[in-house]
């Protein structure tokens, strides 16, 4: 689109920015992660992570984050399909309606879920009113997943919605004319075309779900520790930035691996390779 010179000029502000505000803090973190109190190099922090059983928490976090991401994906696809077929011209308004709940402070809305799910919460009060059995919902893994899906669903809906609304109608019609049924149309045409959006969405849901601690603290009752809670506690209560940073580094490696995996499935690779 541009020549190399313009391209490099355009990238410069970002590179300066990234150097100062992304790399320098990153160096701080890695530095703390591999040193001990006296500033000597040590891998003891990483050893402590294994010793203290924090890997179990990491496993639980990955599980819950994965479940939430899949749930968001499964909820968002039909939703976006319905929305895009219904109102082609009101795209911005619909995306606004889905981003609107996000404007409620997430701490407040998560607390509202507490009010809904508690033993004496709104759902159970309602069940009692109808003389139905009550449920135990709060302080379970299910409640945490629900909180994650609630908080992060819009991050999935937005990019998916954008890529769906950009698909040319005529392509879909052509597929239909060529005899594709709805399933074929979805898997052969829509899915490949919306994959970049879906991958953006997966990243935007998976990462915050993996690092959250507010949701698990409020809806998990403090009995279910996620990796985010542990990092939070290492930093605050323990004031042990070394272990906290080491954990963050491990978490980062984990997420980067994850992203390499998702980019491996990126269908846009051909489009980019033409340069």
């Amino acid at each position, binding site marked *: 689109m541009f020549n190399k010179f313009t391209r490099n000029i355009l990238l410069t502000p970002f590179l300066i920015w990234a150097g100062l505000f992304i790399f320098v803090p990153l160096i701080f973190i890695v530095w703390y992660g591999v040193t001990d109190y006296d500033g000597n190099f040590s891998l003891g922090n990483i050893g402590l992570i294994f010793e203290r059983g924090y890997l179990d928490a990491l496993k639980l976090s990955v599980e819950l984050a994965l479940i939430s991401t899949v749930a968001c994906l499964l909820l968002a696809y039909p939703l976006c399909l319905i929305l895009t077929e219904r109102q082609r011209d009101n795209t911005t308004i619909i995306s606004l309606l889905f981003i609107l709940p996000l404007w409620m402070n997430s701490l407040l809305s998560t607390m509202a879920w507490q009010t809904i799910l508690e033993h004496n919460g709104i759902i159970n009060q309602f069940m009692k009113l109808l003389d139905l059995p009550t449920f135990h919902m709060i302080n379970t893994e299910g409640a945490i997943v629900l909180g994650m899906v609630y908080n992060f669903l819009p991050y999935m809906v937005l990019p998916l919605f954008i890529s769906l609304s950009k698909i040319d109608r005529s392509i879909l019609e052509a597929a239909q004319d060529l005899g594709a049924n709805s399933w074929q149309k979805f898997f052969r045409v829509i899915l490949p075309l919306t994959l970049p959006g879906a991958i953006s969405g997966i990243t935007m849901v998976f990462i915050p779900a993996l690092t959250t601690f507010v949701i698990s603290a409020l809806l998990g009752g*403090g009995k279910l520790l996620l990796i985010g809670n542990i990092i939070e506690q290492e930093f605050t209560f323990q004031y042990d930035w070394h272990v906290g940073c080491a954990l963050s580094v491990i978490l980062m490696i984990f997420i980067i691996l994850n992203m390499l995996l998702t980019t491996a499935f990126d269908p846009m690779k051909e489009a980019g390779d033409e340069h």
Partner: protein
Amino acid sequence: MKFKFLALLMLSCLMFGVAGCGSTGDSGKKEQVYVYSWGDYLDPEVLKIFEQETGIHVVLDEFDTNESMYPRVAEGAVHYDVICPSDYMIQKMIGNNLLQPLDFNKLPDAKKYIGEEFFKQAETFDPGNKYAVPYCWGTVGIIYDKTKVTEPVDSWNILWDEKYKGQILMQDSARDALMIPLKLMGKSMNETDKDVLAQAQEMLKKQKPLVQAYVVDEVKEKLIGSEAAMGVVFSGEALIILQENPNMAFAVPKEGTNFWIDGWVITKDSQNVDAAHKFINFMCRPDIAVKNFDYLGYSTPNIAVKDLEENEEYKNSPIAFPSPDVYKDQETYKYLGNQMDEYYNNLWMQVKVD
């Protein structure tokens, strides 16, 4: 057209921002004091009176835990003058040379109105009473729902009763959690013997299936909403819960409890030492202390407050103004050093990860 709108919006907020900066620049001329305190820990009215009387502008900043306050002060991120940490944190800050000794000649009201027994208790974390003036204090106890718990509550033991499975709320912090089994075993809450601590941890692990949730500040709203049959709470919280939910009752277990004190301290690098002393002295004045007490509900070490208090319910509350037997001979948390701190936290983490 949309973009024009956005541009306008951004332009207007740029002005907003600049105007905001301008106003903070102006207040630089007046004498100021930077106060860093617990969230919602003083009556906003009081600050206005202070400003009117002394002409000193109070810049109030708030923290939610001692631990989130500490790095901001220790790293020198912001130069605060007056801070209100808790007992063990005051000791830690003294130890790390972050505080300066107070000049009690500038604090006549502190000497006059703060109860002697509180200064005496404060010696456990501030030997010689050089650094801190007590502001609020309290105990930790069990609050329980009288409709669900019929037997008398006088021991921490009830928190291990299978009958109340899923009905117990525990405090989510290493020291507060371990304090309970340690007291049950008849040990000090500042125990450093690792075998004893391991036993205490074992008890907490055994209790975990019975616990509904490990909570911090949410405990109040959960108990006001009758979510659980009992919970471990601070006495100040208990007062609020009792007012909102008359089915509840509060008991301090016979094995002993934590006698906590939050106190005013002045930082080492304070640039408004004089104003800082004026502020602390002002907070000790009886009419001001009453206002704060009415706002907060936490017990005050100020001996003049009870007589001035007009709300009969508060005045006669054994929780707000307990008899001296309740807190006599109780222990206060001490700072046990970085390593021991870490050990405690790790024990507690293991209980939660388990």
